[in-house]
């Protein structure tokens, strides 16, 4: 097949064959991975669940991984990363995404408002190392909050689907029951699997608030209790020291979990996925020098923000994807100067190194090939 595509591309040179095929139908591609939205459901307020049918190049995902989709908004293709929420499986021929529409979130709001069956999006193969080990551990603890539920939900569904016999606890934090995506399904999973313990927490709600009536109540739901801490961990998963723990959620939750695990010296059993970037505040004394975007001949005074933001502020539009340092779409070569990784705080000044613009800020003068 590949050889045939190469042969045909000799005839379409210098354009790839897909540049002809996509004119017939956007999902008719020889090489390019795309997906068509087949089903749209808006169940919880402010979020939308899309079912995508990828083109035949799709190789499936591993529970916990993310994909990158590209959506055209006002003529511009924007790419974002989302974790599929459906279970993994070799024969899985569709992708399910649950997307929360964030204030100021261009792509999430666009999809929330405009996604409809027939819409075609660009797609990149699933990626990311946040995933269950192939040999399932005997005990698994899943912790998540808010929209961080997506990769963890895929893990939960995968384990439910394959009849996991070990001990599993899923601890989830949300603002209120109506904001829990796929809540009825969580309930069904809890009911069908005696070894699964699903605990939903609504710390911000008044403890006396009645929970909305749900036909089955197999999940334990608690309003008004506190946020994650050691006691909570002890309560829901006393065996956590022997478990593999997977966490994805807001920064405060991630930090709280990490703190407990580090104190217990269990850091190697903790697996995390960052969903939002908490930029370390920039020390004023750090901000000096000039950033030169050498490929465009533009330079600007270092404002202390990330190189991607500084490039955009200077009127450039470098390619980017996730804007949180995972997809490498915005990689560009740093010719000279020192940059600081805003996630880790590490600085690096090796010349001619490719770096990710979205998570690196200049320290003093920097020349970057943008």
């Amino acid at each position, binding site marked *: 097949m590949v050889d045939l595509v190469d042969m045909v591309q*000799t005839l379409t040179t*210098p354009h790839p064959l897909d540049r*002809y095929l996509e*004119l017939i139908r956007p999902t008719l591609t020889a090489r390019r991975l795309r997906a068509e939205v087949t089903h749209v459901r808006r169940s919880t307020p402010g979020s939308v669940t899309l079912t995508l049918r990828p083109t035949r190049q799709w190789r499936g995902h591993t529970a916990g991984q993310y994909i990158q989709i590209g959506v055209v908004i006002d*003529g*511009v*293709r924007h790419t974002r990363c989302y974790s599929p929420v459906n279970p993994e499986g070799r024969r899985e021929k569709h992708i399910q995404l649950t997307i929360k529409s964030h204030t100021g979130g261009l792509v999430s709001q666009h999809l929330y408002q405009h996604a409809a069956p027939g819409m075609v999006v660009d797609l990149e193969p699933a990626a990311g190392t946040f995933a269950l080990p192939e040999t399932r551990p005997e005990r698994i603890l899943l912790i998540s909050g808010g929209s961080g539920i997506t990769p963890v939900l895929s893990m939960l569904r995968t384990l439910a689907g394959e009849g996991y016999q070990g001990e599993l606890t899923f601890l989830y934090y949300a603002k209120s029951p109506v904001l829990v995506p796929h809540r009825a399904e969580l309930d069904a999973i809890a009911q069908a699997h005696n070894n699964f313990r699903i605990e939903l927490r609504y710390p911000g709600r008044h403890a006396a608030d009645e929970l909305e009536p749900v036909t089955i109540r197999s999940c334990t739901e608690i309003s008004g209790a506190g946020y994650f801490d050691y006691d909570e961990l002890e309560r829901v998963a006393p065996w956590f020291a022997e478990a593999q723990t997977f966490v994805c959620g807001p920064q405060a939750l991630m930090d709280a979990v990490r703190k407990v695990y580090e104190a217990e010296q269990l850091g190697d059993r903790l697996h995390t996925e960052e969903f939002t970037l908490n930029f370390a505040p920039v020390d004023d004394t750090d901000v000096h020098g000039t950033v030169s975007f050498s490929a465009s001949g533009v330079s600007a005074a270092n404002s202390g923000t990330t190189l991607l933001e500084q490039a955009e502020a200077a009127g450039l539009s470098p390619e980017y994807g996730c804007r949180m340092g995972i997809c490498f779409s915005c990689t560009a070569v740093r010719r000279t100067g020192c940059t600081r990784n805003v996630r880790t705080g590490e600085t690096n000044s090796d010349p001619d190194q490719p770096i990710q613009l979205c998570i690196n800020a200049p320290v003093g003068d920097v020349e970057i090939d943008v």
Partner: protein
Amino acid sequence: MTILTETKDGPLVLTPDQIEELGKALDELRARVVADLGDRDREYIYSIIKAQRGFEIAGRGLMYLGFLPPVWLAAVGALSVSKILDNMEIGHNVMHGQYDWMREPDLNSREFEWDTVCPAEQWRHSHNYMHHTFTNIHNKDRDIGYGILRMDESQQWNPLRLGQPLYAFALMMLFEWGVMGHDLEVENIVRGRRSWGEIKKLVKGQWRKAGKQVLKDYLIFPALTGPLFASTLAGNVTANLVRNVWAYSIIFCGHFPTGVQTFTEEETAEETRGEWYVRQMLGSANISGSRLFHIMSGNLSHQIEHHLFPDLPANRYPEMAPEVRALCEKYGLPYNTGPLSKQVASVWWKICKLALPPSLVSSESAPSVIVMRQQKATEVGV
């Protein structure tokens, strides 16, 4: 910039304030268009791509009936149109980064390849960088004469120049190969300013790109039509020739008709943004025509607008042109435009005239403009 000629009301002088004002007006025009870019521009370029693909498929398909002369002509016509659209309204403009804002990998200036023998990467250097930065500056802009022609009086005459109309004709017929060779700067190697070692990598890239083009047009597609091999080969050769003649004509009309100014390095040292704009306007010429004509010329018929805003989508040039023209009129600057026949005739007249020794032809004083510099009004050339 310090060139002076008499206009009928005396010399035209632009003060530093006027130039800054003019620059600001053009910056504002640019900002307005940038803010408005969106779906319309996206749909435009994709509609052109769709048309180009349609003509290409029609042209290749009709070659199978190439034994019928009218069909052969139609096939050549369709394939020529396809190649012209590919090179001009799509290739040239995409590679200028006009559609980079769409963040579409297939229309990204760094990724795009076009249907001609010159590798995109080399063209981006010789054209986007060299020509567009140093437009019409002697010894800097290699598009002045393409290294083989004397296109300006300040280029030295020698007896070899007598053959210039022939060289120009050959360049026109083989234009895609000329464009390919442009970045090699062969004349600089002949003069010993450039070593063979420097061009090795370029030649390798050209070999790879041109090889594929030649294979496709002159071997595989003709072979696929079996007994019609010769007829298809002739058709493909003709389509490439038509594209060459057309591209050459449009491009030569952009900078060489009567009235276009050239500059020296001293005049253009430390240019301000406004002065850069003025040089682009004085160094370019437009061609008037219908909407279809503009599309077929890749909107290089709006060469003035293109040189002012090389990275804005070309379909915006026709809308911007009246404003640019009004600005020219406001400041008394020439806005060089005319129908294709007039501009082509003017270019060939110049090619023939400059082939002759300067003593035989009258020196032509082009309408020029004095641009006063910020610090001091210079009087060179007065």
